[in-house]
C-alpha cells in the first residue's frame, strides 16, 4: 500500500516536470514551431482516423418553407376574415401557428425580432440581413396596409399563445389603455438603438414566450412568461397591447388599412350586441351626436397640442440623450472600459473572466476606451433621436385626445384591432345575397 503510494508520487513528480517542460515550450516564440508539438504518429496497426462530427445546419430551403408558410397563413386569415367571416377558421389557424411557428420552430424565426436585424442592416454596412428575415419583416407590414393586422390575428406565435388562453378579459379605461400604449413605441426605439449600436437584441432576449416554446430558459424568463400568460387570462393579450414593438409598427400601418375587417357584413343596426365582444377594447362606439364638444374650445386645444409636439420632441431628446452614459453601459465594451477605469483594483480579480481575457489579449486600455467612446457618442446621438421619437409619440397620443371623429356605427379601431374576428360572431346582420 505504502509502496504503491510512493510510485504514484514518483510518477506525479515526473509528470509535473513534463508539464513544466511543456509550459516552457508554450512560452517559446511560435515562429520556431513550423509543426505540431507532438507530430502525428505513423501507425503500424492499420488504424483509420475518424473525421470530426459536423452535423449540417437546417437547410436554406426549409427557411423558404417558413416564408411560404407565413404567406399562406396570412392569406388564409384574410380569406377567413373578409370572405368567410369565420372566427372558428381563425381560431384553428392560431392553433396551427402556435404548433408550427411556436413549438416546432421554437418561436424563432419571428417578425417581432426581425425589426432589429433590419435596423442593424440599415445602419451597419457590414451586416448582411438574410432574405428570410427581411421577408418576415416586410410581409406582415405590407399585409396590414391592405387588410389590417392579419399577422397578429393568426400568424404570430406570440399572439396565438396569448389569444388562446383568454378566459375572462377585463375592460381597461381608455386613458390607461392609451398611456400604456405608448410603451411599445419606447420599446421599439430602445430595441433599435441597442441593435444599431451592436449592444444587444433586447426583443429576443426578453421575449417572454420563447422559453415556453423551447421548453427551457432562464428561470426569470420562465417566470415572466408564465406570469404573462396568467395575467393574459384576464388582461387579454398583454404583450401585444402594452409591450410588442412590432405591434407598434403594425398599429400605425393598420390604422390606414385599405380594407380592414368589419364587425357587420352590411349595415350596422346599432343593436349593441357586439359592444362587449372585444377582449381588447378595440371597438369604437358611435358617439352621442349631442355630446359633440365645443368646437372652438376644441380647436384651441388642438392647436395647442400641435404646437406642443416640438416641445415634447425636444424634451424627450434632451432627457434620453442625458441618460446616454447610463444607457451605453449595456454595451459590453463600454461596461468593461468603465469597470477598468473606475475600479482599477479589479485587474487583480482572477475570477473576472472579461477583465482577465482583456488583459491577456495585449490590447491597450487606450484602444478599448477609444472604442467605448465611439459607442458612447453613438448613444448620445441615438439618445436624441430615440428621445425625440418618444416625445413625438407622446405628442401625437395627446393630439389624438382632441381629434373628434364622428362615428355612427360600431367599428373596430383599425389600429388597435387584432382582427381576431370574435366580434363578427355577435353581429346578427346577414348580408343579402
Amino acid at each position, binding site marked *: 500500500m505504502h509502496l504503491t503510494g510512493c510510485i504514484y508520487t514518483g510518477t506525479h513528480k515526473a509528470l509535473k516536470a513534463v508539464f513544466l517542460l511543456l509550459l516552457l515550450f508554450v512560452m517559446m516564440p511560435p515562429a520556431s514551431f513550423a509543426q*505540431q508539438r507532438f507530430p502525428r504518429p505513423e501507425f503500424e496497426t492499420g488504424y483509420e482516423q475518424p473525421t470530426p462530427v*459536423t452535423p449540417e445546419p437546417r437547410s436554406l430551403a426549409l427557411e423558404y418553407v417558413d416564408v411560404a408558410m407565413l404567406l399562406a397563413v396570412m392569406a388564409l386569415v384574410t380569406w377567413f376574415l373578409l370572405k368567410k367571416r369565420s372566427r372558428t377558421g381563425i381560431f384553428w389557424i392560431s392553433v396551427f401557428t402556435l404548433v408550427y411557428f411556436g413549438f416546432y420552430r421554437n418561436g424563432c424565426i419571428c417578425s417581432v425580432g426581425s425589426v432589429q436585424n433590419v435596423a442593424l442592416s440599415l445602419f451597419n454596412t457590414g451586416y448582411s440581413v438574410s432574405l428570410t428575415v427581411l421577408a418576415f419583416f416586410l410581409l406582415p407590414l405590407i399585409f396590414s396596409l391592405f387588410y389590417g393586422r392579419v399577422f397578429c390575428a393568426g400568424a404570430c406565435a406570440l399572439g396565438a399563445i396569448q389569444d388562446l388562453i383568454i378566459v375572462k378579459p377585463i375592460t381597461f379605461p381608455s386613458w390607461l389603455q392609451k398611456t400604456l400604449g405608448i410603451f411599445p413605441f419606447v420599446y421599439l426605439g430602445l430595441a433599435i438603438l441597442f441593435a444599431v449600436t451592436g449592444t444587444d437584441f433586447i426583443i429576443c432576449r426578453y421575449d417572454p414566450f420563447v422559453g415556453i416554446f423551447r421548453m*427551457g430558459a432562464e428561470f426569470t424568463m420562465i417566470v415572466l412568461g408564465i406570469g404573462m400568460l396568467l395575467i393574459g387570462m384576464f388582461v387579454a393579450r398583454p404583450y401585444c397591447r402594452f409591450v410588442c414593438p412590432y405591434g407598434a409598427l403594425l398599429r400605425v400601418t393598420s390604422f390606414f388599412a385599405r380594407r380592414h375587417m368589419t364587425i357587420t357584413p352590411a349595415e350596422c343596426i346599432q343593436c349593441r350586441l357586439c359592444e362587449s365582444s372585444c377582449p381588447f377594447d378595440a371597438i369604437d362606439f358611435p358617439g352621442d351626436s349631442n355630446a359633440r364638444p365645443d368646437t372652438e374650445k376644441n380647436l384651441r386645444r388642438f392647436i395647442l397640442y400641435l404646437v406642443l409636439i416640438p416641445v415634447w420632441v425636444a424634451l424627450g431628446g434632451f432627457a434620453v440623450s442625458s441618460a446616454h452614459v447610463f444607457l451605453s453601459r449595456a454595451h459590453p465594451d463600454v461596461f468593461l472600459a468603465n469597470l477598468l477605469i473606475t475600479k482599477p483594483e479589479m485587474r487583480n480579480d482572477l475570477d473576472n473572466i472579461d477583465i482577465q481575457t482583456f488583459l491577456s489579449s495585449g490590447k491597450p486600455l487606450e484602444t478599448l476606451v477609444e472604442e467605448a467612446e465611439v459607442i458612447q457618442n453613438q448613444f448620445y446621438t441615438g439618445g436624441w433621436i430615440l428621445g425625440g421619437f418618444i416625445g413625438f409619440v407622446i405628442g401625437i397620443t395627446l393630439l389624438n385626445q382632441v381629434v373628434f371623429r364622428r362615428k355612427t356605427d360600431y367599428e373596430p379601431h383599425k389600429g388597435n384591432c387584432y382582427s381576431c374576428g370574435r366580434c363578427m360572431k355577435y353581429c346578427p346582420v346577414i348580408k343579402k345575397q
Partner: protein
Amino acid sequence: MDKDKAQSRRNFIDKGMRITLGLSLAGVGSVALSRVSAKKWVWQIDPFLCTQCGRCADYCVLKPSAVKCVHAYDLCGYCDLCGGYLRPEHTERDTGAENQLCPTAAIERRYIEEPYYEYVINRDLCIGCAKCVAGCTAFGNGSLHLQIQHDLCMNCNECSIARVCPSNAISRVESDAAYIIKGGFTREESGG
C-alpha cells in the same frame, strides 16, 4: 352632404398615409435588400480566438449547451499523457474517474498501439465546458476545440453566448461552411 364630405376627406387622408407608409416601407425594404444575403447564416466559434473561458457551457439557451468539443484528429498527437484527457494532478494514466479532466467523462480513451491512444468525444455527454480544450491547448497540439453543433443549435437571432464571449470568438458564418475545424498547427497553415 356634410357627412359625405367628411367621409371623402377621411378617405383621402387614409389613402395618402397608406401611400406614404407603403413608400417608406419600400424604401426601408430596398435599402435592406441591397444588404441582403441569399445565404443562410449560422453561429460558429473561431477556435483560434477562443480562450476556453468556460462560458459556452453556461450561457447557451439550451441545457446542455449546443457547443460541444470536437476532435480535429489531423492535429492529434495520440499522446498517452494527454493534457486534454488527464487532470494535471492525476495519479495514473488510466481511465479512472479520479484521473479524468472531463467533468462528465465525455472523452473516451481507446488504446491503439504502444504508446498511442485515441480520444473520442461522446457528444451526448459533452457540455462544452472547454476544460479539455484548455488542457489540450496548453500542453498538447490543440486538437480538441469547441464548435457549435448545428443539429442542436437553435440559431437564435443573437447568440446568447456570443454576447458574453470575452474574446468575441463567436460570429455568424455562412451555413455552407458552418464549421471551423482546426486544420494545420497554426491559423496561417490551415489557411483560415
